[in-house]
């Protein structure tokens, strides 16, 4: 076996230029394969790491569905945000309750105009002032309300950016009003982005106190907590007890749901296309190797005849050409794999991503090159084994 590999290496090494050119198809195919899989892994790792960061720092406390409707009503105290803030590891906390008033219109003017386009039915959300920090909301214009507004039960709201756009209320400087049902509210701020709860961009957000007074909100429906990295698990285990000491089992602490599956599907489709291209290139590469090996068999009939006369069997001659072909494929695989890895690293560098690859990808694809070479060598090797020694030895060479 060692003799066989050494002989094959000598055969391949004797024609370096031709070997490299022959391997080119496999180089391109393997490089495309590694780059596609590597970039896919890198991109999905980005999504996952973003998700992980959220998962590691987000906790939402809700009434447990098992607790029954009656008990769920008054489970979370009004000072839940304050209580939760005292837990070690909590960075920000706020209550958030979506009001159950589905058909309440919100409009920017008092005039009831059936044709008006500025009547919308957005979600109505009651929140403690701490929520804006807890969901990492950014206020574009104006300001968020504070504990003073809450205590005074001021009729102020903060609008999500998309809702403000629909109501044509971009300029908060003029203290515009919106009517929630028939109750007027002053718009004091507009949110431009909400890192952890993008749905708020479409919502009307008002202080808990007002919601309690005007819309009969009995108690907050959830508490959103932002924690230090890694503290989420501990905070999640402690929060129900801190919020409802008399019946902690009636509350559950949740982590964020799985990231958007649609995005992953789109990525998979693109990936499939590139993988198909890579495989086609590999097949072309294999045909290239087979072609060159076949020419090599014809050129080396003298050598084949000599090996047979020296005591080489048909099988050993076939094996020699198979191994040579596999070595060419392996070379292509190694070069292609390196090229693919460099591509992934290069793209990641430019896009400021962290390159992520499965550990088996580089060695595995190099080996795949060898397998491609081996398969490509089958027919030429068979042809070589059919060479009749005497006829071969009578030729010059």
């Amino acid at each position, binding site marked *: 076996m060692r003799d066989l590999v050494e002989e094959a290496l000598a055969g391949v090494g004797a024609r370096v230029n031709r070997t490299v050119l022959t391997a080119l198809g496999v180089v391109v195919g393997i490089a495309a394969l590694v780059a596609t899989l590597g970039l896919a892994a890198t991109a999905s790792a980005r999504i996952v790491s973003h998700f992980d960061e959220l998962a590691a720092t987000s906790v939402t406390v809700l009434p447990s569905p098992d607790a029954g409707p009656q008990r769920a009503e008054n489970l979370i105290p009004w000072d839940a945000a304050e209580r939760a803030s005292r837990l070690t590891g909590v960075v920000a906390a706020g209550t958030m309750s979506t009001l159950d008033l589905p058909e309440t219109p919100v409009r920017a003017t008092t005039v009831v105009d059936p044709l008006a386009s500025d009547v919308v039915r957005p979600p109505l959300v009651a929140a403690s002032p701490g929520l804006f920090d807890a969901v990492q909301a950014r206020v574009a214009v104006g300001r968020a309300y504070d504990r003073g507004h809450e205590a005074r039960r001021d009729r102020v709201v903060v609008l999500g950016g998309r809702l403000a756009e629909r109501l044509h209320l971009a300029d908060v400087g003029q203290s515009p009003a919106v009517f929630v049902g028939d109750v007027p509210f002053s718009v004091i701020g507009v949110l431009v982005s909400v890192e952890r709860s993008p749905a708020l961009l479409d919502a009307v957000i008002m202080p808990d106190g007002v919601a309690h007074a005007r819309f009969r909100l009995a108690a907050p429906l959830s508490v959103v907590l932002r924690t230090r990295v890694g503290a989420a698990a501990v905070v999640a285990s402690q929060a129900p007890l801190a919020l409802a000491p008399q019946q902690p089992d009636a509350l559950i602490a949740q982590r964020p749901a799985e990231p958007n599956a649609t995005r992953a599907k789109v990525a998979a489709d693109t990936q499939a296309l590139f993988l198909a291209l890579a495989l086609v290139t590999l097949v072309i590469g294999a045909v290239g190797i087979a072609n060159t090996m076949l020419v090599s068999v014809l050129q080396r009939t003298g*050598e084949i005849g000599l090996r047979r006369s020296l*005591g080489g069997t048909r099988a050993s001659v076939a094996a020699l050409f198979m191994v040579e072909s596999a070595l060419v494929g392996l070379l292509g695989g190694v070069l292609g794999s390196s090229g693919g890895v460099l591509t992934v690293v290069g793209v990641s560098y430019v896009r400021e991503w962290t390159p992520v690859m499965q550990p088996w990808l580089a060695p595995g694809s190099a080996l795949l090159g060898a397998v491609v070479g081996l398969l490509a060598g089958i027919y030429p090797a068979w042809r070589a084994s059919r060479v009749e020694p005497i006829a071969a030895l009578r030729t010059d060479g």
Partner: protein
Amino acid sequence: MTALVELRGVERVYPAVRPVTALRPTNLAVRSGDWLAITGRSGSGKSTLLQILGLLDRPTSGAYLLDGADVAGLSDRERTRLRASRIGFVFQAFHLMPHRSALDNVTVALMYNRCPRRLRAARAAEALDRVGLGGRVGAMPNTLSGGERQRVAVARALSIRPDLLLADEPTGNLDSATAEEVLTLFARLHAEGQTVLMVTHDPQIAARAARRVQVVDGTVREVRPDA
């Protein structure tokens, strides 16, 4: 003393619509240490004879005794093993591998001979020394003269210490001066007791051998030394 090589009624017919008899029933005995020249025109059947003697072809009928054992009916694999261990070949076209040194070209024969790896280099060097190329073990074939190349080929054949050295037109690609170089080498090997069978179309070259047979239309005839 039994003959090293003995053909008893060996015949070779190539199957075709009209079968071609390349070799008529032939009897031939070669003793160990003989230097035999086989002459004949092209197409006379001398190549067929050499192929059968070299176990590269099988007789259609008859017995081929190598050292007393009939090898005519052996399988492909068994004949291949015998080639690797007992028969050394030298060809008109040398058949050296162009990208390998003289030493490596000889070592290849030892590889098929299943010589242990650690002994190969020494035995190859010894064989090259025996043909007068001890100082050129590292030379590449394209830096060697024609005569030197053929001597490397002879060294390759000798390295396995064959019972039988078969040479097919060994001087066919050489000018007369370098041909003489190779013939002198053969004469020395013969003197050392090596059995040599040499095919040639050139009567003058054949005359250097100790014994001559002539093949005419598939029939082998002994040629008397004085003839």
